């Protein structure tokens, strides 16, 4: 043995020297490349550069060790079969390690993208799916190359992969556009979790999640709407941006509709009118001073209260009609005080002995009352953005209830919107501004527009 070593020492030393030289060169090159990468990462603002540098540096030495082993065996006197086997083995190890680097790099870069946008959960499934896809692709390619290196037949495997890809493509042909759209939404940050969006097809609300297929939004009725990601990229989307300050309590819109009940009471002249008016239920006073607002809400100027119209038209007394019409309903906090004012005007007029006319048969004043039915609506607002968007959507009955009926008939003193803005939203100034508007001088749609403008101005 010693004799053999003495005769062939160079056959061992040379491969060992070649291997050591490769190791030293590898160490030196790693330092050089490492320094270059460090300078590059210092210059560039891209956060991913550090990941690239760190990941590329890690396997450098391993690759040179493999190179060293490969060259050392080649220069050795080992049999050709061993040399061939070594090339295949080191080549295979290199392919696998390179694949591992690609997988790690892609995972870290994609994860960086996820958190860079402070998306917290946004697009997570989409990114995870992309990472897994890359991982599978790299492993498959790596395995194919390794098989090829070892001279094994890869055609059956390629065929199998082809069929699998085709089946997958068919199965996911509808999902693919949504997947890529979701990926794009995540990378471009056009739409983020927390944004309030309005899609041209009518859906709107806050984005709660962007999955690999759909974007989830919380609608104004607190339901969750799933919109395919590709639709968001194809269509027009208005993005109002981040959520506004949340109210302490949400505003729950209700709707109101009414039925008219006949009281059977009627008046032919002013004396009868005032006597019934004094004792009629509040629902009667409310009906005759407000039903025009709903029934003729499209008219500008809107007609006045029923008493004024009847006195003018049926009794032909335009002077008293004008006096009754000019009663400023907005100035009264409740129906009792409004009734007192109307009675006082008529009694004062009667005391002057001005009017003893009778209405023609068939033109008597019929006292009616309003039976209000209050219904829940699905609309709920947690902040000003949701509030203004709901305001655009609610029925006129709902709008009417919150502005007119709750203030005067329910005796809240202020409209519901102002109360919520002041008490729950911390928007006292806006609440006061809305409370100052005299709703009786607008059409319902006109008033709705005025309120929307005021709130939009505040949001901007």
């Amino acid at each position, binding site marked *: 043995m010693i004799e053999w070593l003495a005769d062939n020492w160079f056959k061992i030393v040379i491969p060992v020297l070649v291997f050591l030289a490769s190791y030293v060169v590898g160490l030196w090159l790693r330092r050089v490349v490492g320094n270059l990468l460090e300078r590059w990462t210092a210059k560039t603002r891209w956060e991913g550069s550090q990941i690239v540098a760190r990941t590329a540096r890690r396997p450098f030495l391993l690759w040179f060790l493999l190179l060293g082993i490969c060259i050392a065996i080649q220069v050795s006197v080992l049999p050709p079969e061993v040399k061939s086997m070594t090339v295949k083995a080191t080549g295979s190890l290199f392919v696998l390690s390179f694949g591992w680097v690609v997988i790690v790099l892609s995972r870290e870069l994609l994860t960086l993208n996820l958190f860079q946008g402070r998306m917290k959960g946004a697009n997570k499934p989409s990114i995870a799916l992309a990472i897994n896809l890359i991982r599978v692709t790299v492993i498959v390619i790596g395995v194919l190359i390794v098989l090829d290196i070892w001279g094994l037949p890869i055609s059956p495997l390629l065929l199998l992969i082809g069929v699998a890809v085709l089946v997958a493509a068919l199965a996911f042909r509808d999902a693919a556009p949504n997947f890529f759209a979701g990926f794009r939404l995540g990378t471009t940050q056009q739409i983020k979790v927390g944004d309030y969006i309005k899609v041209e097809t009518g859906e709107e609300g806050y984005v709660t999640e962007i999955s690999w297929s759909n974007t989830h939004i919380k609608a104004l009725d607190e339901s969750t709407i799933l919109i395919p990601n590709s639709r968001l990229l194809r269509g027009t989307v208005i993005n109002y941006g981040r959520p506004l300050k949340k109210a302490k309590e949400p505003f729950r819109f209700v709707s109101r509709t009414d*039925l008219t*009940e006949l009281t059977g009471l009627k008046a032919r002249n002013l004396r009868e009118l005032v006597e019934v008016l004094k004792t009629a239920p509040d629902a009667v006073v409310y009906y005759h001073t407000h039903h025009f607002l709903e029934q*003729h809400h*499209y008219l500008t100027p809107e007609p006045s209260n029923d008493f004024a119209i009847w006195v003018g038209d049926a009794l032909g007394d335009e002077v008293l009609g004008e006096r009754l019409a000019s009663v400023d309903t907005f100035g009264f906090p409740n129906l009792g005080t409004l009734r007192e004012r109307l009675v006082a005007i008529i009694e004062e007029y009667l005391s002057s002995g001005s009017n003893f006319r009778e209405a023609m048969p068939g033109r008597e004043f019929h006292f009616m*009352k309003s*039976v*209000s*039915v209050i219904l829940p609506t699905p609309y709920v607002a947690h902040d000003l953005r949701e509030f203004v968007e709901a305001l655009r959507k609610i029925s006129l009955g709902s709008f009417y209830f919150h502005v007119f009926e709750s203030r005067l008939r329910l005796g809240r003193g202020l409209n519901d919107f102002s109360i919520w803005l002041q008490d729950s939203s911390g928007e006292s100034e806006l609440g006061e501004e809305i409370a100052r508007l005299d709703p009786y001088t607008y059409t319902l749609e006109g008033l709705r527009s005025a309120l929307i403008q005021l709130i939009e101005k505040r949001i901007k």
Partner: protein
Amino acid sequence: MRVSDYEPIVGRSAIEELRLLAAKLSGKVIQMINSTFVGGGVAEILSRMIPLLGQLGVDARWNVIKGNEEFFQVTKKFHNALHGRQETVTEKDFAVFLETTQKNIEEMELYGDILFVHDPQPVGLIASRSSVIASRRRSNPQKWLWRCHIDLSHPNEEVWNFLQPFVVQYDASVFSAPAFSRELPMRQFLISPSIDPLSDKNKELPQQTIDSVLTKYTIPKDKPIITQVSRFDYLKDPVGVIQAFELVRKSIDCRLVFAGGTASDDPESDKVLAEVRQRAGNNPDIHILLIPPGSDIEINALQRASSVIVQKSHREGFGLTVTEALWKAKPVVASAVGGIPLQVKNRFTGLLSYGIEGTAYAIRQLLTNPQYASRLGENGREHVRYNFLITRHLRDYLLLFLALEHPEDIIRL
């Protein structure tokens, strides 16, 4: 028709509201009862409403009472008498009414949670109330509603006194106009009738159809057309309409179209038609048209071809011809009778008049001020959109059913 077909006309929120209300009636059976499945305004509106209620998820069913010819002759007399017409009603008539009512009580199944009885013919079914409750031992007693489509302001007292004991047993009654009601010891609601904007009488028509109808009746389009649509009846004052037209014609070149039919149960109508024709004489600008029943498209076309629609009635029910005209955005001049003042708010959605001169003056105002006329017409259309379409009628019925369980003025559902 589907409920959703009305959404483009009345808006999404109105339809959503119907669905919300209908959901609150889940589990209730509404039984509508009248005297006929075909013919007449009640049958027409029920035939449209029942399917729509069903689509909204309300279990509404429709039954009719049975009666022989003699019974329906008696109820026709009652109908006219309640409207204030002179009728001779005998004891035998009352006996026929009671006998048929008793027969129906014995034969009809009165199964509804809410029994909605229309008009006087089936009003006596309420007499079965106590026995039905006893026999069924219902946990929730049935609610009975009486829907009166008749103007009861000046009824024949004898007939009213006969029917009143039945009426007062109902839980609530419903009238079409405040003036039609009477003092009754139960809740009374005001629910106006309605028109269907998608029916032949009210749907949009192509100009070609309008022109072809004018050609059919040889009405040239060379002058503004003033139209009254009503049957030939003294109460519709057709001669007064011609007189008003002649006053207008002195200063404005225009045409008058009086389109109507005669009623088989009204022997006077032929006489009125003859008088109207005689009064019109050979005036080529006056077109007296006898339109056969069911000519809804033709009536629609004539209304749409008109510049002004007149309804110069001495007495009127609700006046649905006025509703139809307003829906077509036509300026209307109408008498302040019956349900017309609910529809025509003077100077806002049309003009009210009281005499021939006043009617002529109002027509002149509209013909010489087309912008003003157009504004009134548009206002009138909006007024009908929100208050007199079938969707509002449906809503009121749903509210009525719900209100039966809630005596308060503010109901929270």
